[in-house]
């Protein structure tokens, strides 16, 4: 507001609003305590922990075999990644060999899961922007196809329990691979459709361009990872920088934000990432070797050697780490998760202050936070 209208002396009351824990836009149970001046946010205090389910504590009290079934719930939209991080950590400690077919299967299902996670993000992001009843249905339609594929290979739509220590659980049938191929063949057309509706839409552009600019130095200070930091132009993707599994053998690119790291950049990053993942799935299918699917026998008393292991993988939300301390028994001594959402959410207050309330949704939606991933 311009000062020559002499409005600076006029006092308005500060309004304190609870946003959450039950609020349609906080993706579950995040609670933001906002201090508003008119519609401008002056202070934000995120309150998390409404979904704290003691995942780390459960890890100490379950056998490794049982805990494998549980960790899909750490980040339920990308259960394959949480399983993979845990399996990687345990395999590092144990030193067991993973057969190549299992490696390829892991990469395959992980990339499929990345697409399904991004699709859900796309739907909810548009809901946050206010397109409540039209567009969000389209990404969900494609997601259903992926979930059907997951259901066939793992037995459930979201809680897969598929990637195990030493390999994977089940070898899919050849017909399954054909279905995946069919999906990848038609998926790029679908992305084109989404982009036709969203990407250049003037209202979307107005609400996302230049909104929620995440500065490089701030992002690095907060340890932000994943598409959120790639939107700011920092090329940091574990699949390239610290390759794990069979990613060195695959050919792909890391999409980066073209502008200053605003909401629209993060949106574009994820859209492009979906296209890249689609390519990766095709490559995995082409290169899929024959052979064993597990290097360790899946028994109830599964145990690993004593020692510590830290593994990190690139989940759809960023660097997902798992730190396991084992004492050689069938239970872990301590399990510690490094969740991307937890670290990315910490940067939210610095993005929100000084913005109107309508921007909260766009910014919060664009950093793609999953609450159980924050609260565990």
């Amino acid at each position, binding site marked *: 507001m311009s000062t020559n209208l002499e409005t600076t002396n006029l006092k308005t009351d500060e309004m304190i609003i609870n946003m959450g824990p039950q609020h*349609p836009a906080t993706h579950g149970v995040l609670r933001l305590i906002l201090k508003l001046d008119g519609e401008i946010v002056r202070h934000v205090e995120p309150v998390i922990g409404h979904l704290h389910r003691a995942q780390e504590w459960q890890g100490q009290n379950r056998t490794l075999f049982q805990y494998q079934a549980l960790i899909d719930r750490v980040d339920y939209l990308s259960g394959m990644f949480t399983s993979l991080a845990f399996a990687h950590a345990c395999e590092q400690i144990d030193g067991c060999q993973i057969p190549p077919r299992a490696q390829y299967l892991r990469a395959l299902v992980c990339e499929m899961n990345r697409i399904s996670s991004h699709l859900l993000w796309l739907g909810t992001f548009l809901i946050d922007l206010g397109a409540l009843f039209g567009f969000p249905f389209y990404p969900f339609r494609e997601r259903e196809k992926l979930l059907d594929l997951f259901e066939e290979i793992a037995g459930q739509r979201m809680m897969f329990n598929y990637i195990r220590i030493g390999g994977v659980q089940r070898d899919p049938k050849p017909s399954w691979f054909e279905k995946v191929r069919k999906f990848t063949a038609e998926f790029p057309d679908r992305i084109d459709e989404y982009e036709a509706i969203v990407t250049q839409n003037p*209202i979307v552009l107005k609400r996302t361009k230049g909104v929620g600019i995440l500065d490089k130095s701030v992002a690095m200070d907060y340890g932000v990872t994943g598409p959120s930091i790639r939107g700011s132009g920092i090329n940091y993707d574990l699949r390239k920088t610290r390759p794990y599994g069979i990613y060195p053998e695959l050919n792909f690119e890391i999409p980066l934000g073209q502008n200053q790291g605003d909401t629209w950049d993060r949106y574009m990053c994820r859209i492009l990432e979906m296209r890249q993942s689609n390519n990766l799935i095709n490559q995995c299918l082409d290169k899929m070797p024959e052979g064993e699917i597990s290097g360790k026998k899946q028994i109830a008393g599964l145990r690993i050697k004593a020692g510590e292991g830290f593994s990190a993988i690139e989940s759809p939300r960023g660097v997902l780490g798992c730190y396991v301390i084992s004492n050689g028994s069938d239970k872990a001594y301590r399990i510690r998760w490094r969740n991307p959402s937890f670290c990315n959410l910490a940067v939210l207050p610095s993005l929100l202050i000084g913005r109107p309330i*309508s921007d909260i949704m766009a910014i919060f939606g664009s950093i793609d936070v999953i609450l159980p991933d924050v609260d565990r």
Partner: protein
Amino acid sequence: MLANSAELFKFTRLTLIWLTLIFGSVWGACFIVGVLLPTLLLRACDNEIFALLAQICQYLTPLIAILVFIPINAMFMVLVERRGLALFTVRMGPNRVGPDGLLQTAADAVKLLFKEDIIPTGADAWLFTLAPIIFFAPSIFGSIPLLAAITGNNDLFAITNLPTGIFFIIAASSVPVVGIVMGGWASNNKYSLVGGLRSAAQAISYEIPLVLSLVTICYLNQSLNVVEIASRQTGGFLNWNIFGGGALNGLDKYLNALINGSSNANDILQAYYPSNQWILTVIAIAGLVVSTIIAFFMYITAACAEVNRIPFDLPEAESELVSGYNTEYSGIKFAIFFLAEFTNLFIVSSIATIMFLGAGNNPIPQFLIDYLFKNVTFIPQTINAITQALSPLINQIHLINPITFWSVVWMIVKTYSLVFFAVLVRGTLPRFKIDQLMDFGWKRLIPLSLLVFFIVIFAKGVINTNV
């Protein structure tokens, strides 16, 4: 070609059934109150009091028509919206309650009636109760002047033919925002408060372009009377106000004469568009046509904002303000808000139809009809014969006559097309932000509407000079 013909067919069937239901019941109510009751009263006893009562009954017919129309129509519109959105999002939509989900919204309405009604602690109970009434009332009396235009100036509704009709409607349409602000403030809820304030800011900002675009049409027609404006648009889409507000009138006449093989076609053209300054005339007409088309879309945009439709549904922005100004409303009060919102959408659509899209007039130009039916004479003949046969009945009832019937049919088609377009928009666009909304209103729409008005007055002046 039409892969989804089954669902589209169901949708069309549903729409037709509902429309029959709506207009059947409205017609029935009008018939009872406006025709049957007065007749019976007059027959029962021939004294002054009964005559007065009969007259009062006739005078009240428009009100009864609207009171019957609004709830049923709102139910239908909600159903159209839900089924329409289902069509656009490749799913089925409500189809279990009644045949094809016919009664879904009726069930919703009955349910809302029986819900508990809560007045929160600290709320201003009086204002809280008054707000839905104030929000709803304008949709009753604001739509009354439209009735005469919709029914083709039927005798029963002649009383609603206001000389300053559009002025009255504009005045009425700015009342609901008071209800919203009142409801938002009285709820003692911060989301409601912000929602109500946003609504006020939004409604007043978009009122100016809305009124300016309507005034453009009023100026071109030199009238504030909706019936007169409607009657000026007879005879095909070239005469509609959206195409220059009568600037293409001569073209229509000329083509008509040309096709009929009339010898004085060029004279007609000369009379309307004199050739001595034809460059200026053509520029003026083109300017008029373009600016009225722009005015139409400006009106649609501003009207969307007035009735809080996506992309301007900030007052109830679900993802930010929970449910906006009606966060605290439950049960029947919420139902009334809901009702009024959809009725307002219908009213602005019908204003658009009347002011821009030729009201209840046939969109097919006369010369086209002549051309098409030059050789096929039996169809108009059949229609004439049927009309002739029915005329005694029609004259008896004097509530329905062919003019009214066709007027209402065309109004329905045009108005619900606009409503369906609003549903399509709702399926596509996200929501604006408040500051962008204000910017769009004040820095784009208002200057544009001023510009359009400027062009129109000069173009009209040029044409006036030449004729």
